[in-house]
């Protein structure tokens, strides 16, 4: 059984600890929504285009078609990327309110920027943030975490690619933000029921942390948008940097109206 607080991982994390999360939204101008999500050095950039015109053969009369492309950082998309595409599509088909946009296309492109393990989970989180940025209506926010079971039977959350190579089994879970129920469960390898349940619990608490981070990041984003609106700021000059989580809105307001600034406090 794993001792949860042991610092035996190579990067000095404990077993249940995620790598540092970094979120950036609204990076690209031409698409309708974009976001980058990273767990440490694993990072995925995702773009959303839609609801847009759909090809007739893909058209669905009662709902929007969701098209997903996952592009690896090295080489052309292979079987693994197709599996990731399938997982992303089925996950987001369950939360995007596709019925609101019948006969349209929502195109999701997830480009891996740096692969250091947990790519499916990173891609799901990036996609969710990009969908929020694009303003696509969703029933809930989806957050995902990957964990592995090692040869010793320990469960490690958010593995690096080196850790994942030596894993006996790999589990990726995605949870919705409403009830924190699993919407995706992708497991590979040989594992016991106990290990599976332990993975589930650890991933769930990880997903909760990511959800809090996303909320925090969106809070910053909307606060900045609110300030820019009330002070007649041109938000286009601040895109990209303004929505990064670690920038405080106060730094941007320098010569603005003091009263309105106070109201926000």
């Amino acid at each position, binding site marked *: 059984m794993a001792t949860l607080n042991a610092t035996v991982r190579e990067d000095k994390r404990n077993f249940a600890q995620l790598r540092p999360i970094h979120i950036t939204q609204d*990076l*690209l*101008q*031409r*698409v309708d929504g974009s976001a980058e999500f990273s767990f440490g*050095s694993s990072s995925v*950039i995702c*773009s959303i*285009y839609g609801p*847009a*015109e759909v*090809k007739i053969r893909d058209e669905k009369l009662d709902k929007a078609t969701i098209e997903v*492309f996952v*592009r690896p*950082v*090295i*080489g*052309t998309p292979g079987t693994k990327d197709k599996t990731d595409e399938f997982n992303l599509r089925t996950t987001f088909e369950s939360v995007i309110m596709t019925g609101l946009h019948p006969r349209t296309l929502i*195109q999701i*492109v997830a*480009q891996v*920027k*740096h692969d*250091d393990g947990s790519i499916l989970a990173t891609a799901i989180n990036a996609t969710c943030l990009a969908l929020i940025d694009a303003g696509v209506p969703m029933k809930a926010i989806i957050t995902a975490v990957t964990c592995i079971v090692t040869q010793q039977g320990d469960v490690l959350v958010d593995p690096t690619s080196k850790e994942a190579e030596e894993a006996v089994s790999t589990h990726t879970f995605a949870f919705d933000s409403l009830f924190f129920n699993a919407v995706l469960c992708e497991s590979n390898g040989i594992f016991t029921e106990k290990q599976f349940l332990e993975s589930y619990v650890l991933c769930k608490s990880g997903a909760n942390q990511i959800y809090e981070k996303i909320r925090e990041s969106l809070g910053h984003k909307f606060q900045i948008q609110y300030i820019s609106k009330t002070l007649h700021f041109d938000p286009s000059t601040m895109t990209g940097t303004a929505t990064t989580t670690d920038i405080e809105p106060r730094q941007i307001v320098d010569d603005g109206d003091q009263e309105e600034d106070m109201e926000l406090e």
Partner: protein
Amino acid sequence: MVKELEASNNEKSFILEALREGIRLDYREKHDFRPLRFFFGPNYGHVEVHLGATKILVKVSCEVTHPYPDRASEGILILNTEISPMAIPSLDIGRPSEDEVLVSRILERAIKRSRAIDTEGLCIVAGEKVWTIRVDIHFLEHDGNIIDAACIAALTALSHFRRPEVTLVGTDVTIHPVEQRNPVPLSVHHMPICVTFAFFDNGEILVVDPSLQEEQIREGDMTITLNDHREICALSKAGGIELNMDKIVLCSKIATARVTEIHDQIKKALEKDSESR
């Protein structure tokens, strides 16, 4: 799939009028590039280049493979320039667009055919084992002039890249992991950099590094590939308006100046990165 929106007549005449007065929409001079920014990734050979709003991500990787039978003592350089719908949402997947073919041709000529990378130095055992260097160019955002941006990004990444060291004892090949021995850089013979021009008003007006809007309304274009020794490596002018000889000479002079500047910027960015590592 949705067709790309063309520039409206009003937009067209506005941009043209402004150009006739010598003004570009982003306040640049006609012969200026947009600001270049370099972001290096955690590993060698991982570079993101921003040319204005155009964003290119390049990842260089290597593996040991068999050489081509007709070139037994040469390593292999592969360029992958697949454009994803992230950059051009109207892209038809699975069928390479005209743009994509043009980009890959020009880059192939600029980097492979001009022998920018010493492929013979990538040979380990002639006829058996060579390094294959793979350059994956990802277009994240297309705001005009993806050719120049991709070329700059690819060359920066190739100069930044380090491959694991190899020792040869008899016929035994040992590849030393990066942790054990310092990886070695590729030998870059020269740095061919593309400079793209757009022409308006029957070639009367020419601008360097066209933005997307300028690309949409241009009458002709030309890409000159020059290296840091002021030599022309390739020149591509596929259709568009006819140009007289003087214009081409003028363009190559402008391009020489730009290439020197860009080369300095790449060098500075690489030095800054190697200091911080």
